[in-house]
């Protein structure tokens, strides 16, 4: 926005390209230390040369270590691909893992999986960093229990600073959390046998007073194993995730009765069938239980099909990912979401007399208090909005989705809001058409805050002797007001099974390391009737054991467990070696330590008995339950190999289509009563919390990719912050200072205080302060600990224990400090418009981002997209480059309409191309290394702007500005039109970056690639050079993938076909906004996508770029007449 106002600071940045100059770094070195001038350099280099002359011949002795026994499926230098299931969150998308000599290096979506259909979200793309995380727990440990919470207070952690990852530490609400740090804890390493003995003893001693807390677990064999475990030990099972659908589940039960598929099933939404999406505070594509499935359907519906595209209307307190894509967005306070939803229902049913509920006296009475005009006035929404919206929705009945709630809508009224939304969907006949809950509901979110709150009560009353926690981190994500920490202190024995020493693990007696999803066997059933398999692709890196194997080993300590889990006598039949078509890494079935730890069973037979592994259990369960019930031809072994190869088994896709509509019980509506709105006092804001689209609920906070890739909306990284509107900032005196530094403010909710920086940006309701969750981890690892503030502290349990309230509290931002720097990569890439501003109705950014409304496009396909003005050229022919490309000329088409801004492409590029992470300090200096970035542009009304997201990467120019200024010809255009960067030739003058008009070149100011701690280097793609200090780098259209495409074509003896080559960004894009192909082939999908909407960024500069963007189209619908 500073750009729009032409702030002096921004103009300065535009001129100078970087915030700091290298000279400043040297000037900052301590005086009197080593000063190394030019003359010194010459002197020393002369000496070095002379010395080199006397040195012996260099023979760097390296070793080649072949296999002792080479697995048949592995050929060094050739990648293997394995289908599996993503275990990063409970959505359980299908993935395909690329492995090189037994180490996975890339996650891609499984095209056969009906959920994500070949794409993966940014969290999945970054999953490798979780696998190779050096901060994972390596062996079972015992801890000294922390009982005396007060003793820790006041022992504040020292701020940590190092060259590349300066972290920011300030007091958050909970001094207790602040003071837990792994370094301070005395860890006692244990063997698995010792650990098992201890835990088994505790479980047997506790009897029914033991509790198992897990995150959401689904999958036929995993669920069956859990049930078996619960039958061996009479343990109570509580499911708790960081964010739980309590309100949705309760509202659905009230509206439709108890769900057929179990109490914790939730509806599924078919966004790929929705021509209209209306959201009241929810963000189905930026968070929630199945974001990638939703993003896929949502994104495809956003594409212009003829003159049709979906329409998105969003009511929300601050922009979310779905709000970023809204055709009409209305910024409202969280407390206004429920009245607006009810007002919409009133308009539809009472005023318009539409839907099957029209004329129902009970419904009319329930809606009576929500006159649309009054609601609109109260919420400060333009009059007539609800009237137009109701008309549009009715026209699209059965083809729309109304969603609501989410974290931003999780106010005290969250259950009522979900009820109102359910009513709207039933009235609009979406139930059973775009929403399915009767036959194959979602099982992806089964957690319950209410169950957790009840458990805390029992813990406080001393009813819990042993607590076993897995896949759940209540010590982090429960607000202090829930009282989890004091309650935990009253539990005699706490055991945590976790991948790392997280907050909950810090408070345990014993922590057992579990395995990452890529190291373990497993299965998943994200939607009832859809099964997928998890297969290991790497031996466990550390001395861990999967949760499932831990359950078996613990159960095996009792006679009942021995009866259930003994491996069949005689010695377990050897699993036949998998044929090369479905290779399975051998030896992962039973970790050696686990097998050794198995004690002799009490009723020992003559032959030593051992417990089965989870792999055996899984296979047996699939044989007896899934294969046996599916009436398939062929043997089970064939089925098993086929299922492993496909990764997914979908026995009856038809059954997973929307089933019969459920009947809405109108009596439930009577519970919703209009509340007298209390206008906020002067200076008071309403709090709106959001799940961060990058860090999610905070589980992945130690992932450097997710920390560094900027938030899609606010474009800041390595931080979270209260975001307030510019007008509000002015009013409260919380504006950024002249240097672009922000204030830190304190907020108090129900006695809990939280300090966080205050970021000022448009797209927030002036009466709202918005802050994302997922940051402020007290104990997660070197990357994520102490980054940002923990906004869970501002939540509070509902009075009746039915859930947790996140948003809607009235808060005051009181400044406590000033001068805080927020790193925002968007602010680093100012494109210099120079004198090339096109004047007229389009204004300044018109040659970068182009937009039009659907009505304009229908009238004129080139609306908003005037042809470029002819400009002078350096080249003799005055036009495109003189090179000819007879066979291949690679190009890209990017549909701005379909880009939803989710950052999946950015994460994919980081993972594919070994892009280094540089840390907050370097990002602030403008040295982030992302090869592709999503630029976000605002347009229209400054208080509530339209947003366009634009993937910006190297445009592979024909007349590239970078090439003509490189003194060593390190960047040149190759025979297929790619502007390649030759790292070994680059001497680092940075002239190219200076001359690039798209600001997509990245320079290694430091040896960023060396910052990786072992074993993170295993995640590197062996087909891409790791760049070192002083080298320029940039996007090269995934050269290694183009090579691979050529190789495949050569093997076939035919030219490369359209669709043979996918770049990493294109491959993972949920909406397939990116087309890549051969520009010589005019029939390629990429060339066919270049319609009249196509334009090239800064085309008048005559760089002859090979990337064409398509104009962003907004479907204003009925609002268009209102605005015109």
């Amino acid at each position: 926005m500073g750009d729009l106002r032409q702030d002096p600071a921004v103009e300065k940045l535009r001129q100078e390209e970087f915030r700091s100059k290298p000279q400043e770094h040297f000037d900052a070195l301590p005086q009197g230390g080593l000063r190394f001038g030019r003359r010194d350099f010459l002197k020393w280099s002369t000496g070095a040369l002379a010395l080199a002359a006397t040195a012996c011949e260099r023979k760097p002795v390296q070793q080649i270590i072949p296999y002792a026994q080479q697995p048949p499926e592995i050929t060094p230098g050739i990648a293997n691909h394995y289908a599996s299931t993503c275990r990063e969150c409970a959505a359980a998308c299908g993935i395909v893992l690329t492995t090189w000599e037994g180490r996975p290096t890339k996650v891609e979506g499984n095209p056969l999986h009906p959920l994500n259909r070949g794409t993966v979200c940014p969290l999945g793309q970054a999953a490798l960093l979780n696998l190779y995380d050096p901060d994972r727990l390596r062996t079972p440990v015992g801890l000294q229990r922390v009982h005396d919470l007060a003793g820790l207070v006041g022992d504040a952690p020292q701020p940590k600073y190092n060259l590349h990852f300066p972290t920011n530490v300030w007091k958050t609400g909970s001094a207790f959390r602040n003071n837990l740090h792994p370094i301070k804890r005395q860890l006692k390493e244990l063997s698995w046998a010792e650990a098992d003995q201890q835990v088994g003893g505790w479980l047997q001693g506790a009897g029914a007073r033991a509790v198992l807390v897990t995150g959401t677990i689904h999958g036929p064999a995993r669920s069956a194993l859990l049930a078996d475990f619960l039958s061996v030990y009479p343990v109570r099972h509580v499911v708790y995730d960081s964010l739980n659908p309590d309100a949705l589940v309760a509202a659905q039960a009230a509206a439709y009765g108890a769900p057929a598929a179990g109490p914790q099933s939730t509806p599924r939404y078919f966004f790929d069938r929705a021509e209209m999406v209306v959201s009241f505070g929810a963000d189905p594509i930026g968070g929630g239980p199945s974001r990638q499935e939703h993003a896929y359907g949502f994104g495809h519906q956003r594409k212009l099909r003829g003159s049709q595209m979906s329409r998105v209307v969003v009511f929300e307190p601050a922009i979310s990912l779905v709000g970023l894509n809204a055709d009409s967005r209305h910024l409202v306070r969280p407390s206004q979401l429920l009245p607006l939803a009810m007002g919409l229902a009133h308009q539809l049913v009472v005023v318009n007399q539409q839907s099957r509920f029209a004329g129902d006296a009970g419904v009319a009475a329930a809606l009576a208090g929500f006159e649309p005009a009054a609601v609109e006035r109260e919420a400060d929404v333009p009059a007539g909005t609800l009237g137009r919206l109701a008309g549009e929705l009715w026209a699209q009945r059965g083809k729309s989705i109304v969603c609501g709630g989410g974290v931003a809508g999780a106010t005290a009224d969250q259950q009522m809001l979900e009820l109102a939304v359910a009513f709207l969907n039933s009235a609009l006949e979406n139930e059973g058409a775009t929403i399915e809950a009767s036959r194959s509901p979602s099982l992806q979110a089964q957690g319950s805050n209410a169950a957790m709150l009840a458990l805390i009560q029992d813990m406080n009353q001393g009813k819990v002797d042993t607590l076993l926690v897995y896949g759940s981190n209540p010590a982090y994500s429960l607000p202090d007001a829930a009282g989890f920490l004091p309650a935990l202190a009253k539990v005699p024995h706490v055991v945590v099974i976790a991948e790392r020493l997280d907050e909950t693990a810090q408070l345990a007696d014993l922590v057992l390391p579990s395995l990452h999803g890529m190291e373990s066997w497993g299965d998943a059933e994200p939607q009832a009737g859809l099964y997928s398999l998890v297969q290991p692709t790497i031996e466990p890196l550390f001395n861990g054991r999967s949760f499932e194997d831990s359950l078996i080993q613990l159960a095996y300590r009792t006679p009942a467990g021995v009866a259930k889990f003994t491996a069949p006598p005689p010695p377990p039949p050897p699993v036949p070696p998998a044929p090369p078509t479905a290779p399975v890494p051998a030896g992962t079935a039973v970790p050696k330590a686990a097998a050794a730890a198995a004690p002799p069973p009490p009723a020992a037979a003559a032959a030593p008995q051992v417990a089965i592994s989870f792999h055996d259990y899984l296979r047996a369960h699939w044989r007896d339950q899934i294969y046996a019930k599916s009436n398939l031809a062929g043997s089970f072994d064939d089925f098993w190999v086929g299922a492993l190869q496909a990764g997914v088994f979908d026995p009856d896709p038809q059954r997973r289509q929307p089933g019969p509509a459920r009947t809405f019980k109108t009596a439930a509506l009577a519970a919703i009563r209009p509340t007298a709105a209390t206008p906020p006092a002067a200076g008071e804001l309403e709090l709106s919390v959001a799940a961060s689209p990058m860090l999610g609920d905070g589980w992945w906070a130690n992932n450097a990719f997710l920390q560094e890739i900027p938030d899609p909306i606010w474009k800041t990284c390595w931080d979270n912050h209260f975001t307030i509107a510019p007008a509000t900032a002015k009013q409260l005196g919380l504006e950024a200072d002249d240097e672009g530094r922000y204030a830190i403010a304190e907020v108090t909710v129900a006695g809990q205080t939280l300090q966080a920086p205050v970021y000022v940006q448009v797209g927030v309701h002036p009466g709202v302060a918005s802050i994302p969750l997922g940051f402020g981890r007290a104990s997660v690892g070197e990357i994520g600990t102490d980054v940002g503030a923990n906004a869970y502290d501002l939540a509070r349990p509902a009075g009746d224990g039915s859930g947790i309230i996140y948003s809607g509290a009235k808060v005051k931002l009181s400044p406590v400090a000033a001068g805080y720097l927020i790193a925002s990569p968007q602010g680093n890439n100012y494109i210099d418009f120079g004198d090339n501003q096109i004047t007229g109705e389009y204004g300044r950014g018109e040659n970068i981002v182009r937009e039009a409304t659907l009505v304009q496009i229908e009238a004129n396909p080139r609306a908003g997209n005037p042809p470029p003005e002819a400009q002078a050229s350096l080249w003799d022919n005055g036009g495109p480059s003189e090179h000819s490309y007879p066979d291949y000329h690679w190009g890209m088409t990017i549909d701005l309409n379909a880009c939803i801004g989710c950052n999946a492409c950015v994460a994919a590029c980081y993972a594919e191309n070994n892009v280094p992470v540089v840390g907050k300090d370097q990002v602030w200096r403008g040295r982030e290394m992302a090869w592709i970035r999503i630029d976000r542009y605002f347009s229209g009304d400054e208080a509530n702007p339209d947003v366009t997201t634009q993937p910006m990467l190297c445009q592979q120019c024909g007349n590239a500005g970078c090439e003509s200024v490189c003194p060593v010809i390190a960047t040149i255009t190759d025979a297929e039109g790619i502007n390649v960067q030759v790292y070994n030739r680059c001497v680092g003058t940075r002239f190219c970056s200076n001359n690039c008009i798209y600001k997509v070149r990245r320079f290694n100011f430091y040896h960023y690639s060396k910052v990786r701690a072992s074993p993170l280097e295993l995640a590197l793609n062996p087909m891409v050079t790791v760049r070192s200090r002083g080298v320029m780098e940039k996007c090269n259209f995934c050269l290694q993938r183009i090579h691979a495409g050529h190789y495949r074509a050569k093997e076939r003896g035919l030219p490369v076909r359209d669709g043979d080559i996918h770049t990493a960004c294109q491959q993972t894009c949920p909406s397939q906004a990116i087309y890549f192909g051969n520009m010589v082939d005019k029939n390629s999908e990429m060339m066919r996508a270049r319609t009249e909407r196509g334009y090239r960024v800064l085309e008048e500069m005559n760089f002859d770029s090979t990337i064409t963007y398509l104009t962003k189209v907004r479907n204003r619908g009925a609002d268009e007449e209102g605005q015109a």
Partner: protein
Amino acid sequence: MREHWRLTLIVVLLLGFGAWKLLGMGENVGYSPVQPIPFSHKLHAGTNHIPCEYCHAGVDRSRLAPIPALNVCMGCHAVVASGTAPIKQVAAAYAALTPIKFVRVYNLPQFVYFQHRWHIAAGIACQTCHGPVQDMDQIVQVKQFTMAECLDCHRNDNYLPTPQDKYHRDPATFHNRPANAPQDCNVCHN
């Protein structure tokens, strides 16, 4: 003055010698390290005419020429010459599943992505780059592995498509252009 002359001459000579050595640094021609087992290519590839690809299997499919695993050795040596000391060493290593750590002879920098498979497909003999391996008891590097050496071949239009190479023999796919090897930087530098 004369002394200055002499001193300058010495320094210049020293620097020149240093520069000459530096330019040749990394070429490693003549490098022939002693390997942990006295494996003789002369015996295997020369005397017994075992094809290179029998042991270096996968070289026609991979960018690497894989060093054989011990199970490949033992495929023959479980029977052949099983009583000799070196074979006993190999058998012991195989029984213990401890790999033998060979000393690398040919070393390309990590920013070079040389593809063995396409050179094999083009019918280039291993000896073209690796020298007369079949005559070597201990492997010795005979050629410089420099970019100049690569380009010397890639610049000569001397590639004759082998009968298997459908791609280059098909005029439709290759536009009847001379089939010289590509010289783009990105062919080897990803």
